[in-house]
């Protein structure tokens, strides 16, 4: 296994404004790597620097072991990119765009275009500007995948797609991954990353705060605890060691817990309980936890 994407202290400032600071990433060949963070955290900046759409301030960025700026053309031959906002030339039909796009690669893509158009149900002869956002997005997906790239970079790819189409899209990405493609998947929606990615990097204010396996993230010691009490016995002050973000609404209490489970239980049993739930936290909860710090 070798690193398909590797950055060392990659830093980008827009003038004096922060873009990203000291980003260190290593995406292995064949993995689906999630890249998560809220708007403005630096996801797109990282991706755009990798693609040499913008130029780094300092640090190092390599794809397939090649320098992102010096060997840009060679790298891009095997990269497929889907930008978060899809816009294409005025007055152009989908098929014209695909043909133009395909003309940049040294292979025949017509079969793949037909397959993808069929799978995603894109009307090839419709003008792109007359399409709905979801259909434009599909055009973007096909445009990014038609040359069967080794590395697929997706910047918030699912916005605008209906749930059915999202599923088709995820299946497609998994298939590409099975074929051998490495995928960098940026998103601010955790649940979609959770389903598809092997590892995830969390970015906050331009810096990577954690890189973890999805499975490890969820196995962290945190538990979601919620319980409901009989009416009239609404707890007003709850103090359990290790409980965070305590919320009381009506007769229900919920919090994130990390600590001695026995003490937690003995504390809870003081109340006349109707129901208790102790569950694995969702990625959303973990995510909020990272951002609360």
């Amino acid at each position, binding site marked *: 296994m070798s690193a398909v994407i590797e950055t060392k202290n990659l830093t980008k400032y827009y003038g004096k404004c922060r873009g990203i600071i000291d980003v260190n990433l290593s995406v292995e060949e064949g993995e689906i790597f999630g890249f998560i963070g809220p708007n403005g955290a630096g996801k*797109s900046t990282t991706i755009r620097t990798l693609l040499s*759409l913008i130029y780094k301030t300092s640090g190092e960025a390599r794809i397939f072991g090649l320098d992102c700026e010096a060997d840009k053309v060679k790298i891009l031959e095997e990269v497929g*990119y889907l930008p978060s906002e899809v816009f294409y*030339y*005025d007055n152009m039909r989908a098929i014209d765009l695909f043909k133009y796009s395909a003309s940049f690669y040294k292979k025949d893509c017509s079969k793949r275009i037909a397959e993808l158009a069929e799978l995603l149900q894109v009307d090839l002869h419709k003008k792109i500007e007359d399409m709905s956002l979801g259909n434009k997005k599909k055009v973007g997906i096909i445009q990014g995948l038609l040359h069967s790239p080794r590395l697929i970079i997706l910047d918030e790819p699912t916005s605008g797609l209906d749930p059915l189409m999202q599923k088709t899209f995820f299946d497609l990405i998994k298939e590409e991954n099975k074929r051998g493609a490495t995928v960098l998947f940026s998103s601010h929606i955790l649940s979609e990353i959770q389903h598809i990615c092997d590892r995830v990097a969390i970015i906050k204010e331009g810096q990577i705060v954690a890189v973890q396996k999805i499975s490890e993230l969820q196995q962290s010691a945190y538990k979601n605890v919620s319980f409901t009490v009989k009416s009239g016995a609404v707890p007003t002050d709850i103090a359990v060691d290790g409980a965070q973000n305590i919320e009381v609404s009506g007769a229900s209490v919920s919090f994130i817990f990390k600590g001695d489970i026995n003490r937690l239980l003995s504390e809870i049993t003081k109340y006349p309980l109707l129901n208790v739930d102790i569950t694995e936290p969702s990625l959303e909860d973990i995510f909020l936890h990272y951002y609360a710090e």
Partner: protein
Amino acid sequence: MNIFAFETKTQMKSFLIWAASLLALFLIFVSAFYGPFMTSKDAVQSALSSLPPAFSAIFGVSMDSLFSYGGFFSFLYTYVSLAGAIMASFIALSAFSREKRSKCVDFLFTKPVGRGRIFILKFLSCLTFIFIMNVLFILSSILSYTGNDQDPSEIGTLVLASLSLFFLQVLFLAIGILYAVFAKKVRSPSGAATALGFAGFILMAIHSLIHEDFLRYISPLNYFSPNSVFSTGGYELEYAVTAAAVVTVCIAVSFIKYCKNDTQAI
């Protein structure tokens, strides 16, 4: 080459409209006005002399040289050059702001092709249009020249004078590219091109009125004058050099900016 083909194909329709209108206008003017002009020399002379001199200066009417084919050509060229300048700016603005306008810079710049190469291929596509346009223009002026029973031995001078339009268009191509590359937003290439053309026209009018030599250096429409070719047999070196410098600087600066610029996220 795919970029060249794409650019040329995309731009072809508007080019054809521009070229046809400009050439038709030129030929109609020559065939409609040259004959009557020459036959009614005295009447025209007296009518024009009653106008204030400033007026005739703005409209490019110079009494001494008007009543020759060269004079008439130079007079017409004032308007041809304005249209030609707008046309060349339009072609440049249209080609070099195409991705910016449709917000698909990301699309083109993430294809396996260097930005320098994109720039050069777009530029070559624009130049091809200008080249074709001027071949047609020279043919038209030869047609109008021989059609009006002029001396065939002077045809070389006419061709050289007609080349004014080519040099002028290359100049405005370069200015248009500079504008397209540096402008944050280009809403309409035709609007911006018209603005560039009329800015040139105003500078030319100011130069015609004030007649200060240094003003001519900032008036691109005056760099290449058919009048000078008809009267001296060639262009004025200092303005030709200025034009070459302007073109070189515009293209070089635009090229660097185009290659080195951070692409704006939408």
